[in-house]
């Protein structure tokens, strides 16, 4: 109640919560206790072991950065519901422990978690599961409770829901319900579970959260997973006592099993392990280098470096080119017949040290070998392959875009050679990665993208303006992909932008018009990836866009107080945190947003998100590489 009043009275602070998780930030700086053990009372008489670890020096009463940390602590911000969410996170953590424990859940453990009047629906309605997919390897079973899943969560609570399944009461009931859930993960010795509250609404005497719950287990011949959405009702925390569960209602439940321990196996070490570069450059993360390479060399916290597949020496085996940070050489790995790969970047003369975001292996001069295009922050590098996998760098094109991100090539004008589209992020190198987009949900003040037309002889000309691609093209673009979406024979272009509307440029005779709005594919969100495919097999190419999913953003942006405070921008801002987008091409020039209906929105903080038929059944599946910044400090922003 206190929380609710506070939340509705003050002006909202949109940005930090929309983007961030909720865990509190501890004060920065060194831990004084860590020093005391190594600190001598007088200066040391002898030095013994070569101790070289630097000793942090704790200065002043409170550093500016500590004060800064307080400012972004969600508990100091105005969304007091974030404090509530945080207090339930600790309880959900206990619940996770109960789900993961193969020892039958113990009633004592459950009792601190729940109120006396606790009631839960059956969390695994085994009688009501439909088999929605089955082949020789996979089985998918699903339950849906259609009545409650869509509405605002404060309105209809578990007590009102019309459950057809029997209720479980009190601590024994919770233990029962969890035991049944464990039955959904047969065979495996270890269960791994995750629970995340992604919506919250307050009422006078209780508050409710929607919680995403996933659990999995693996054994030699089987691997299973279930995915659920629960509506949880909580008591308010009181006198240092955490919130207690009043009720759990099941909203969504799905069970997957596959007759194998795992589908994918990590073969990185087998493939690359014999190269010195494996230990030097593959095993350490970007974080390793941030204190070892100066920013002046072009290393960046964000780690936006990609890769390209192509056969550089014409032996029929695919090879791999990897872009890397400033001060770290890009690498070319050439595949051997046994599937291993040999690192040859120096002899191939492509071990460039400039910070490189993206590269393509394509035949730029139609002579039958794979040339190399790479883009650094401001230079486009064009290297000609001599046919054996050795490259000659042509004169770099400077200032093509500022802070370049992705590359995408196609023959836009149908003259038989490949042209190159270069995405630019913001105009200033100083804030590479985190800019000042204005306004946040519809920014058009970034760096310009460029279309470069192939004139032969590794000469390219900027035709962005001439082709009409200068419209709407300063939107902090992260990715672009060419495809003929209207099946008229020429290549159209979709561009994913970080802060707001994306572009769909329709090609008519070499001139482009941004038709994103009329085609219904603006997708106001944080676009970071775009890929085309035909997962519904109707011959019209559909779009999958990698966006940001933020549980905190969902929690905040859907609350009434937030909607009241932000007015018309609220729905746009809600979209910013929704997750990935799937647009089905209807073949009429417009697309339909099926992200949630098809169940492919929750891709977390997504980067590359793409189609691939992983089980060879002819139906394209989706893979999402995600995660923004995992650093050594565990207090997630």
């Amino acid at each position, binding site marked *: 109640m206190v929380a609710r009043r506070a939340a509705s009275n003050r002006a909202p602070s949109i940005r930090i919560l929309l983007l961030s998780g909720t865990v509190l930030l501890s004060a920065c700086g060194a831990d004084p206790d860590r020093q005391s053990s190594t600190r001598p009372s007088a200066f040391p008489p002898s030095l013994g072991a070569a101790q*070289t670890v*630097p000793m942090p020096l704790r200065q002043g009463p409170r550093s500016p950065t500590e004060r800064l940390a307080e400012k972004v602590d969600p508990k100091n911000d105005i969304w007091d519901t974030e404090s509530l969410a945080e207090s339930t996170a600790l309880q959900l953590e206990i619940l996770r422990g109960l789900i993961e424990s193969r020892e039958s859940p113990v009633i004592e453990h459950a009792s601190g978690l729940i109120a006396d009047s606790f009631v839960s629906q059956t969390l695994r309605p085994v009688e009501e599961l439909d088999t929605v997919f089955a082949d020789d390897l996979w089985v998918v079973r699903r339950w849906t409770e259609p009545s409650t899943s869509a509405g605002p969560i404060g309105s209809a609570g578990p007590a009102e829901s019309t459950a057809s399944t029997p209720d479980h009461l009190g601590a024994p009931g919770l233990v029962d319900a969890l035991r049944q859930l464990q039955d959904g993960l047969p065979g495996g010795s270890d269960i791994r579970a995750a629970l995340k509250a992604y919506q919250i609404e307050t009422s006078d005497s209780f508050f409710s959260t929607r919680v995403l719950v996933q659990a999995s287990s693996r054994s030699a011949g089987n691997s299973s997973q279930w995915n659920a959405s629960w509506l949880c009702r909580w008591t308010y925390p009181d006198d240092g006592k955490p919130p207690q569960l009043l009720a759990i209602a099941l909203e969504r439940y799905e069970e997957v099993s596959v007759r194998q321990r795992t589908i994918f196996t990590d073969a990185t070490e087998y493939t690359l392990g014999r190269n010195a570069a494996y230990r030097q450059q593959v095993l350490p993360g970007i974080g390793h280098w941030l204190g070892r390479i100066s920013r002046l060399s072009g290393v960046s916290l964000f780690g936006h470096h990609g890769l390209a*597949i192509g056969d550089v020496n014409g032996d029929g085996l695919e090879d791999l080119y990897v872009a890397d940070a400033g001060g770290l050489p890009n690498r070319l790995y050439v595949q051997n017949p046994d599937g291993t790969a040999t690192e040859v970047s120096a002899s191939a003369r492509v071990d460039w040290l400039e910070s490189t975001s993206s590269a393509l292996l394509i035949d730029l001069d139609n002579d039958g070998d794979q040339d190399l295009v790479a883009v650094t922050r401001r230079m486009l590098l064009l290297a000609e392959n001599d046919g054996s996998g050795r490259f000659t760098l042509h004169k770099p094109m400077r200032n093509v875009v500022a802070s370049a991100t992705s590359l995408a090539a196609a023959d836009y004008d149908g003259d038989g050679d490949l042209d190159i589209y270069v995405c630019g992020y913001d105009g200033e190198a100083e804030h590479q990665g985190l800019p000042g987009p204005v306004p946040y949900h519809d920014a058009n003040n970034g760096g310009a993208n460029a279309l470069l037309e192939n004139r032969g002889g590794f000469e390219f000309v900027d035709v962005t303006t001439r082709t009409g691609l200068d419209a709407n093209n300063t939107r902090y673009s992260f990715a672009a992909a060419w495809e003929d979406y209207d099946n008229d024979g020429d290549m159209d272009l979709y561009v994913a932008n970080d802060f707001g509307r994306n572009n769909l440029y329709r090609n008519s005779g070499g001139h482009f018009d941004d038709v994103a709005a009329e085609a219904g594919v603006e997708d106001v969100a944080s676009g970071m990836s775009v890929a085309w495919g035909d997962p519904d097999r109707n011959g019209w190419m559909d779009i999958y866009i990698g966006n940001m999913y933020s549980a905190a953003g969902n929690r905040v942006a859907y609350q009434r107080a937030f909607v009241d405070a932000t007015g018309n921008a609220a729905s746009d801002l809600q979209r910013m945190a929704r997750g990935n987008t799937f647009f089905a091409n209807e073949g009429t020039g417009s697309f339909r947003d099926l992200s949630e209906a098809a169940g492919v929105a929750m891709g977390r903080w997504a980067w590359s998100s793409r189609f*691939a038929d992983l089980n060879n059944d002819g139906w394209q599946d989706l893979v999402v590489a995600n995660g923004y910044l995992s650093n050594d400090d565990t207090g997630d922003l």
Partner: protein
Amino acid sequence: MSRSPQALGTGRSPADYVAGWQATLRLLRQGKSWSGTERNCVFLNISGLNTGGLNTGGLNTGDLRFADVSAVSGLDFPDDGRGLAVVDWDGDGDLDLWLANRTAPRLRLMLNQGESKNSFVALRLRGTRSNRDAIGARAEVELAPDPHTMGSALGSRLVRTIYAGDAFLSQSSKWLHFGLGTAPVIKRVTVRWPGGKRETFAGVRPGGRYLLVEGTGAAVAVTAREPRPQRALASAPQASSVEPGEPGEPEAPAVPPAPDTTERVLLPVRVPLPRLLYKPLDAVGPRAVETGSGPLLINLWASWCVPCVAELREFSERAEELRATGLGILALSVDGLDRDQITKPADANRLLEELEFPFPAGYATPELLEKIELLQETLFERSLPFAVPASLLLDGAGELAATYRGRTDVDRLLLDLKSLGESRVRLQAASAPLPGRWIAPLPGPDLESLAKRFGVRFPEDAERYLRLALDRLAARNAEPMTPERVRRRSEQEAGLRLSLANAVLKQDRREEAIVQLRRAIDLEEDLGRAHATLAAVLRSSEPEAAIDHYRRAVEIDPADAEAQHGLGVTLRTAGRLDEALRHLAIAQSLRPDWPAPLIPMAWILIGHPEPNAQRAAEAVRFAERAVALSEDRHPVALDTLAAAYAAAGRPTDAIATAREALDSARARSDDVLAAGIQSRLLRYRSSSSAPTVPN
């Protein structure tokens, strides 16, 4: 944190919003996570069930369904994923994945080991009239209807296009891969080449790989390589160590290289230093670090720090060797500068005596440490808390060439000293921790951003960096200039002079600021901030000139709230009250949370030559809002409110509010303000007449 502005205005983001981004960035650089350790997602397309997995025409829109199979796929690593490329790397007929990560391991090859009985076909297209890679070409594989299922009579058509670059920073294989389900029969394969021309290819069978050359109409089988490497992979002992671990654990890669505890960084370009002051052992006052007479190592240490002492001892023992290179060492103790004051400067002194330390030494000052932290922020993406031992290696010209975090290895130091004399190109090459080739010289440090960083606390250093930047700009005058470059250069110079003016203003050098601002305006007449800053400087001495410059500033950028406010205040002083009120109101609407314009607005109404009830009521509203917005009910805002109450005929409220204002002013030791309030308070008590309006 701050809300995003809703409109772009003239291109400048409002300062607090930008500050919000920068605050976030700083926390990230200190090692905070942000949506970290998220597990990759995989969604299985389950739309095909009712047709046996295949052999239907397209779905009706809306019938598409996926299941979340992230965990069982084995792909749900908590890596910070970035790139993702698809390729049948091991040639076993299914799609494998290469992932590029931000975190360790930076690369993963994930081999698809699904034991499905489903078949496939792979096609490589080659253009002859079209581009040779056939990027943008589309292949359609039409399958015969399967009598066992209820597929459409037309059978099914699978469509795949060849792309070069998609998803994020990724390019997948140009082989088109078609999963075909169980026991498929291929009826027809059609290629639609870029431009739309269609061509049918004969001879494609399930389970094979084919090359389809434009204009030939016949698919050529490509033999799979031998031996099939997936067998090697399955049995290879090497592979076992990176097999996914037990469920429930993040599958860690093999042990990464042991971190070298000393972080030594040779900079690729030299960085000019701020002025560094220290306290010599034997003198009271601060002294500037002397640079420019040969290379110098500034070493920071504490007597309580074990590696520091080891390092000092090594410096002592190898003093002759070090001196022979011409290197000077300045060892600055930080004893007594830490929060807990573990040791005192005297402890440092005792240690130096015991070691008979042969190099100059002294005590670091808090400002010196602060400046070194600012330098580190400029130099590194990861800002680490300051720690000892730490050293800075300066070249003969006094510019920073290398930094050491942790104990300096003297042998390493001797090598680094040699590289100080190297050419710019070789220096840049030596700075990379792994060998490779640079294509272009790196630009020097951004002096303007150094100036910005130092300007908050150290305007004299900001000034130094800005003057250096101006010198470098002038040096580039010799280069041939296109009109475009002349324009950009003049824009840059104007910006630098504006910043310089701000830096010298902070040092109370008003005349110098005026000179710089006038030169900035000469260079770029439409630099609004230069006009606004000049106006603020001139406000008291030349109000009319100030008004002119303010007017120009708001003409250039009407959304400059500070300029609107300044103009309003200056107009008010000049007695042009209506105009003043108008600009103050604009400032107020531009920054609704800013109390500053509300106060003069209220005073204008309070002292208006034609007072009336409506004006008085409005004054009360403005003043109340100012009080609400001001920090801790600021006495100036309270004083204004008291006067507004008095003007509105509410003497009791006026007296109470004035008292609060008085207390608050006294608490802040603001005697001048307190005296003013006191005299006004007397007047509220004695009569109901309007108070004297202060400026």
